[in-house]
């Protein structure tokens, strides 16, 4: 530093920075700026959302407890897909999504269910006649996800998370029909018309709709005031604002893919049942067409490959011909097996109480199982629901007869490359679903009847299926009242019905006999009044794939009195003699002992059941 001259203060001249300083400042500013920046990572797709590797997640479907989820109604995990949500209007979107399911997997495990049957995932027509497609059954594009529920990534994430939680996921599919995608141009004016005629006095008021005309075996006919004009042209609608556009993929966007015969008028007439449009303008697919079949197999197998589903629940099975099911089921099994997916469950919904019809879909080459609709009507409706109405209640002899017919009408050999279980042993049992009023609605709120029915559901042979909300005592009537929003319950796990079902699930899981045992009826009755055995029904679950495991389940379906397994001096006999049984359903675990002849007297309180297990087979801490 240069010394200052005496008497002069050194002037302070700001010195501008030099070039090196400038470069250093620039570099330092860059690095400093980057250092100040918060962590900025690349966008990435989480591993769970990428293409999954297919795997078999189920050992034995009889060990599973299915829980039916209407995705739109379970939980809203992402507000950003709440398009057109109208809260409180059950015929409209409510906002539930796959993220919501993923966020509440612990709820399912607490309840004790092991498989989630989720409503269809494909893109739908948004809305029709002021009702939204929240249910997913109005397909428009079988290749794309429904954005109301999330994207492919969130679907995969949910399924992967479910699998990690020990849960399986079954996909609901529809092959019978697509959404309200075209109209029949009956009057040849190129415009969809709805007309009302009649005066109401001299003539009946009738309503005709080109969206949904009556069935005509010739095909819906065009006509004007001058008469018939041949088949009415099928005109696809193109309204992108509600996604009412020609369907995908491929052939499904052409008239050739549809029967074009109009709406079913009489479900008992086979040709109408198989080829008519579903009410509400849902267009019946020509499933006999080879290209249509190939498209359906490809479309739905692809979803399994995309997201690693574990099974299909198939809608409207009885509206599609058997030949289709043979080709479809075998084609899907073969394709999925090649990708490493085995034990893939396919069960169908045939809304019919006729066992012969139901069983026809389980013949070799077709489906692994069907919903046990006949049991729904004859057991849960006629017996359990009517507990509050004794004159209407049927005797439990009806159950025995039903189960005897099961052996007669349903296949007794497993499907080749199927789930390895005969359909007779793998029928899907259910109390109610989205298409019928809830159990509690019909039972006038009788929760004892509900819990008794749930015990039956979980103790009997087959695969139990619980409709969401049952555990929360939902009591909605018919559609859409039976499609309530679940998240308003706060996912409460403390209610009596929730805890009862959870216990039943633990018992079922703990006792092999309840899952895999063969069934032998030990007591049934026609009595529903004041008789000793009024309402009693008892059956054993033992043998078969349960080996030496045993359970005896005794029901009292009578709402008024304690009943017992005796009538006019005759006492129920069981297959284990001199055995002490413990009621593992009752927290007090009372015991009952059969005598040397195998006779066993069991008393059961009104609308209750006992699950009796040999004392030496009792599992603690369930």
């Amino acid at each position, binding site marked *: 530093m240069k010394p200052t001259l005496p008497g002069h203060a050194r002037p302070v001249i700001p010195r501008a920075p030099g070039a090196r300083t400038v470069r250093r400042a620039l570099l330092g500013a860059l690095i400093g700026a980057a250092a100040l920046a918060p962590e900025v990572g690349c*966008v990435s797709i989480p591993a769970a959302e990428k293409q999954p590797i297919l795997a078999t997640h189920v050992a034995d479907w009889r060990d599973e407890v299915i829980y039916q989820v209407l995705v739109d109604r379970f939980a809203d995990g992402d507000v950003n897909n709440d398009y057109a949500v109208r809260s409180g*209007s059950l015929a409209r979107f409510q906002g539930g999504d796959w993220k919501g399911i993923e966020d509440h997997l612990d709820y399912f495990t607490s309840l004790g269910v092991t498989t989630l049957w989720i409503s269809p995932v494909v893109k739908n027509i948004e809305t029709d006649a002021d009702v939204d497609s929240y249910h997913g059954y109005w397909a428009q594009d079988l290749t794309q996800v429904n954005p109301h529920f999330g*994207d492919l990534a969130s679907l995969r994430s949910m399924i992967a998370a479910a699998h990690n939680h020990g849960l399986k996921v079954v996909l609901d599919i529809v092959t019978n029909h697509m959404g309200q995608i075209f109209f029949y141009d009956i009057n040849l004016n190129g415009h969809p018309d709805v007309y009302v005629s009649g005066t109401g006095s001299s003539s009946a008021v009738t309503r005709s709709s080109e969206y949904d005309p009556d069935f005509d075996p010739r095909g819906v006919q065009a006509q004007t005031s001058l008469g018939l004009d041949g088949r009415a042209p099928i005109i696809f609608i193109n309204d992108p604002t509600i996604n009412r556009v020609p369907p995908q993929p491929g052939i499904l966007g052409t008239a050739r893919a549809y029967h074009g015969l109009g709406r079913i008028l009489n479900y008992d007439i086979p040709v109408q049942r198989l080829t008519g449009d579903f009410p509400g303008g849902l267009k019946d697919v020509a499933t006999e067409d080879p290209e249509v079949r190939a498209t359906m197999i490809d479309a739905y197998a692809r979803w399994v490959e995309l997201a690693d589903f574990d099974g299909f629940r198939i809608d409207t099975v009885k509206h599609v011909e058997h030949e289709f099911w043979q080709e479809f089921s075998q084609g899907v099994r073969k394709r999925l097996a090649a990708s490493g997916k085995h034990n893939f469950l396919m069960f169908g919904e045939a809304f019919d109480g006729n066992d012969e019809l139901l069983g026809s879909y389980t013949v070799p080459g077709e489906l692994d199982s069907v919903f046990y609709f006949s049991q729904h009507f004859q057991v849960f409706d006629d017996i359990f629901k009517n507990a509050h109405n004794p004159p209407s209640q049927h005797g439990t002899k009806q159950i025995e007869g039903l189960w005897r017919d099961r052996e007669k009408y349903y296949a007794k050999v497993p499907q080749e490359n199927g789930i390895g279980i005969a359909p007779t042993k793998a029928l899907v049992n259910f109390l109610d679903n989205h298409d019928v009023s809830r159990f509690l609605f019909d039972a006038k709120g009788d929760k004892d009847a509900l819990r008794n029915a749930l015990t039956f559901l979980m103790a009997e042979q087959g695969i139990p299926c619980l409709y969401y909300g049952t555990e929360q005592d939902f009591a909605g009537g018919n559609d859409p009242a039976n499609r309530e929003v679940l998240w308003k319950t706060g996912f409460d796990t403390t209610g009596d019905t929730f805890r009862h079902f959870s216990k039943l699930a633990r018992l079922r899981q703990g006792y092999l006999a309840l899952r895999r045992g063969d069934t032998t009826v030990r007591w049934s009755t026609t009595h529903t009044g004041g008789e000793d055995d009024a309402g009693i029904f008892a059956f054993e679950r033992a043998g078969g794939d349960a080996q030496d495991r045993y359970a005896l389940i005794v029901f009292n379906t009578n709402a008024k009195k304690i009943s017992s397994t005796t009538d006019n001096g005759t006492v129920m006999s069981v297959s284990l003699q001199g055995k002490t049984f413990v009621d593992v359903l009752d927290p007090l675990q009372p015991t009952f002992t059969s005598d040397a002849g195998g006779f066993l007297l069991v008393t059961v309180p009104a609308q209750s059941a006992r699950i009796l297990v040999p004392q030496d087979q009792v599992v603690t801490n369930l």
Partner: protein
Amino acid sequence: MAKTKLLLSMAILVAIPATARAQAEPPPSDAPAPPAGSPSSASGASTDAPSTAPAPPSSAVDSSRDVAPPATPPPAPPGEGAALAPPASAPSGHFEFGSYGRVRIASDGRGGTGRQANVVAHGTRIDEESYAELELRREDTFTPDIRTKVVATLALFPPFFHFSGDATQQIAMRNLFAQGTYGPWTMWVGSRMYRGDDIYLLDWWPLDNQNTVGGGAGVTLPDNDTMVQAHVGMQRLDNAYQHQDIQVVAPFGVGAQTITKLDRPRLVETLKATHFFRHVPLRGMAKAGFKVIVYGEAHELSAGTVRDTITNNEDRPVPSDSGWLVGTQLGFWTGERDTHVNLFFRHARGVAAYDPLAVPTTFANDKTTSGSTETLVAIGANYERDMFGVVAGGYLRAFRDGDPSPTSTQKYDEGTLVVRPQVYIGEHFGVAVEGSFQERRLAILDPKANAPLVASALRGGIIPYFSPSGRGTYKRPQLRIIYAVTARSDGARALYPAEDIFATRKTEHFIGLGAEWWFNSSSYP
């Protein structure tokens, strides 16, 4: 973390486009809503400005943010040989007319019109839509220390009448403000394009770009090298996010009356400090200098209630929201021929990650923008020497919305790098060539790649031009012939509906004529 930051630094320094891990899509919802009729301006205000090489020290202005120049030193007192000061001049005023504009017409070479093919928020402007501003100003000097100006700028958006045959012209008022200067202080109130330095080739102001209605003040500190500016402004966009009018029963008689149900303006406060280092003694650059800017914003929206008239006429609460933004800029200039470089860094959170002219479309589950972030680094530069010039720009930007899902079209990384060298042919002609690459990587699944969807566009172009005002990157007007070709990746095409031709065409041509001008505009000193 260190690795990421070093990568960012290196990317800026070497400007390698491949490091821009970014994607593109049609006008993103996070970007400011484009002025109506100007779809190419999805990145922000559709006006552009020359890259603002800082003005000579005697008028240390910063783009449109006029701050008073240093005060004239007082005359020496008598008795020291100084002449008597001349008498103060009388107040004076005058009108000014200025304009910024660009007009272009182009073909896609396939019978259609030339269409902008950017896939990022701030893509290149070689194929930018037309736009114009007409500005009228009144400037008055009352005393040497007190001056005012009143600025009115009309913006015109395409399509123009001669193209569409539609006489309805979309007009917006971009500037309508009054500004007063008192000594070192400047104050203003009104509607204003209030912004800093841009990157010309991207038509973008990376650090600060307020299209605001409000007021501000600024002061030049006594060192004459430091400016501090602050502003507060407000916007209330006319959509259900901020504003709703509904019909209600009139209080008297029959019928309905309109009331405001939702009144939720976004309040924005900004603070900016600039320091100049002048006459940096670099070899051969006597007039070189640089500046450092530190900048911040705060955004607030109040809670409110909106009526859901589309679905069920239910009143829904809208929660309050807020956000903040910090940024910095380092600028360097040689003082010769507009040669300069500006480096920008910015980070924003919450609603500040969204331009005030943009409406968030995705939210956290509490219906706020909580969790939204934007981080960017950018560079703009110009170099001119003799018969040669090159102007360039680039950026890296990461945007994340508040959507709880890890996949969202509003989660992406993107970037652009564009270089436009030119050769001047004589004093009034030139040929520029441009090369650019832009990419956006979105957090949505590309099922084919089983990875994030990557949309990119590689572009090249040539622009011969006539520049009547002379040689230089920022000399205007300029009359141009434009040809550009853009190669669009599979991911870029996947962003369009299947029925849009952009979903199928891999290559886009742009063959056109264009003109650009600016003069005497308060936005572009």
